[in-house]
């Protein structure tokens, strides 16, 4: 067995708008999502997506927030001084030292998903590092209702990382390889992250292929989540965010179980389902910044107010342009 390789480690992801005129980048707002497993930073300039970065949450939430921001800002030469407004979100939202305001990850995910996948989205499944939420929202991405799983990491991103390590399969290949099977095995009976190792080992010993074990595990995870979705009910369109949203082994099986296909981003989309929370936070930051500017303008008696660029920005971005 390869003792050196960390199979659970998913790659950090970084994206910057191509052909960006650094001088034109003004009114920068930031959204920082410090989750239990991953942290993301999204930067907007005048409501337009210019950069994002996704990394692992370290032992210190404030450090993770700073690291995520630097990952997004440094390639463009953007520092904290250039940022007009920052919104923190995620379970570690209170540990974003430079945040002007915090907003719950529920509100941010809905807003981010709405921006990413369009205003038709009504039901969002957010599969995070240590929990799972089903969010119902309106056409503006405003939360109407939501439901979350209990205090258990089974069937979440962290659980998938453990499986990757146990089976020595790079985490980004799990989804694809879980379909390299002849017939769908029954789901594993226990998705408990703690018992995953012994369960997987005993299946391998019983002659199962790695792919078959992956399929059984993905199916069990999908089953757990499908139960949650059914409790809330699915209203179209349905969209999946969060790290597990990138694992087709789980998402396809969820679609099969609930009988509804999730909205897919275009092949050339720059968006990553994992940044939905930070994107929503950045959009709120943009609105909050504009609101503050307007209040200041009113207070100073000035008539000039920033033009509303958000709607136009979405039109520019939708459908999202290809990445670098």
């Amino acid at each position, binding site marked *: 067995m390869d003792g050196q390789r960390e199979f659970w480690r998913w790659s950090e992801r970084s994206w910057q708008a191509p052909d960006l005129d650094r001088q034109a980048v003004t009114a920068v707002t930031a959204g920082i999502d410090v989750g239990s497993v991953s942290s993301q930073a999204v930067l907007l300039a005048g409501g337009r997506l210019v950069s994002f970065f996704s990394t692992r949450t370290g032992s210190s939430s404030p450090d993770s927030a700073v690291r995520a921001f630097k990952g997004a800002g440094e390639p463009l030469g953007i520092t904290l001084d250039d940022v007009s407004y920052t919104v923190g979100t995620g379970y570690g939202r209170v540990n974003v030292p430079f945040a002007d305001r915090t907003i719950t990850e529920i509100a941010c995910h809905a807003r981010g998903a709405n921006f990413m996948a369009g205003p038709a989205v009504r039901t969002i499944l957010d599969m995070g590092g240590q929990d799972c939420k089903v969010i119902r929202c309106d056409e503006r991405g405003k*939360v*109407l209702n939501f439901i*979350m799983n209990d205090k258990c990491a089974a069937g979440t991103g962290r659980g998938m990382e453990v499986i990757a390590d146990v089976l020595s399969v790079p985490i980004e290949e799990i989804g694809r390889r879980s379909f390299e099977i002849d017939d769908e095995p029954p789901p594993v009976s226990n998705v408990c992250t703690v018992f995953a190792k012994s369960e997987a080992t005993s299946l391998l010993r019983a002659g199962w292929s790695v792919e078959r074990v992956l399929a059984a595990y993905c199916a069990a995870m999908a089953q757990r989540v499908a139960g949650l979705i059914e409790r809330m009910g699915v209203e179209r369109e349905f969209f999946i965010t969060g790290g597990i949203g990138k694992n087709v082994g789980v998402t396809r099986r969820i679609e099969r179980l609930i009988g509804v296909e999730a909205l897919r981003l275009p092949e050339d989309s720059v968006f990553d389902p994992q940044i939905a929370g930070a994107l929503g936070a950045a959009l709120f930051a943009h609105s909050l910044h504009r609101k503050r500017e307007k209040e200041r303008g009113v207070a100073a008696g000035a008539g000039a107010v920033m033009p509303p660029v958000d709607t136009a920005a979405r039109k520019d971005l939708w459908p999202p342009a290809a990445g670098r």
Partner: protein
Amino acid sequence: MHLRIDGEAVAVPGGSSILDACDAAGRYVPRLCHYPGLSRPWAAAEGGGPALWDECGLCVIRSGDGSEVLACATAAAPGMEIVTDDPELRAIRLGRLASILAGHPHICLSCPDRDGCSRDVCTYGNAPEARCCAEFGRCELGALVGFVDAALALPRRAVTASRDAVTEGRIRREMGLCIGCGRCARICDEAPEAGRALEMGAADAPAAGAQERPRPVARPKKGTLQAAGCTFCGRCGPACPAGALSTPGGAGARRPGRRRAGSRPATPVLPPVGREPLTEQAVGAVPSKAGVLHLLDGAGRVLRITGAADVRRALTEALAGQARGEAAYFRVELDDLYTQRESELLARYAQQNGHLPPGNEVDDDLFGDDLP
């Protein structure tokens, strides 16, 4: 007969106690020793005999002349003006509750797994003698503490007690948990189908550091329930507010026989979810710790659910902004993982109500398309 309770007119039959009148009016007044259909605990003392034990004293209310009286022990009179809740009454109840909790394991009340736990092992490493009991999450005492002390002014400590348990028939006794309310002994004496097998007796040894005389505990009159003549009617278990007596696996230890079917257990009045008035005094009693707070309006509707690193500070801010909002009450629970707990409580609220609390809605003007 008509009287007024907290300003509201109530009509009750003659012979009612003030507590009966409060129940009829839907005004919960905390009580532990009182149980519907039973005599008062210290009736013997009034008949000239020695008081066997102290009443719980939690049902203290203020009568029309301003005096503090026990609602269960005072007859309602026409035209009475009753106040069931004011800062002094709250302080008295807190003091009495503190002495009851001093001898009863109650770390369960601050357990982060309050929503459910297999109880196979204690994740939080509490000593077996201090741990939760089989009634975890559903005992009357816990609900009562939440009602009387919604501000968490009393520290939830790891109190230890003997946890030896005896099961006879389907009646389980864990007398280390007894708080001495005397309900079971009175039911056993007064219910027609019961066997007069239980009595209240002195606790074996006073709790370490106890300043008052120890509360008595319930015990069989002879060594075992069976020897004492227990009929195993199972009436005592459901009446116990503290998990000391229980009937695991059923409402009754044994189905009462046909000839006993005439006697039906009374329906107790249970504590509603507690709340404290959003006042400087009440907020001052809240610990400066991480947790989640609920803000409620005058009618008890939830306005906002917010996690905070320091719940007292967050409440102080809410108090400062009170003029602008409509918050009138609050309650808190402590939890170090307060952002996660906030989400859990929001999810529960949303499931029950179909929407988020009004104060948790993101302002409409933060959605891009609505920008002017």
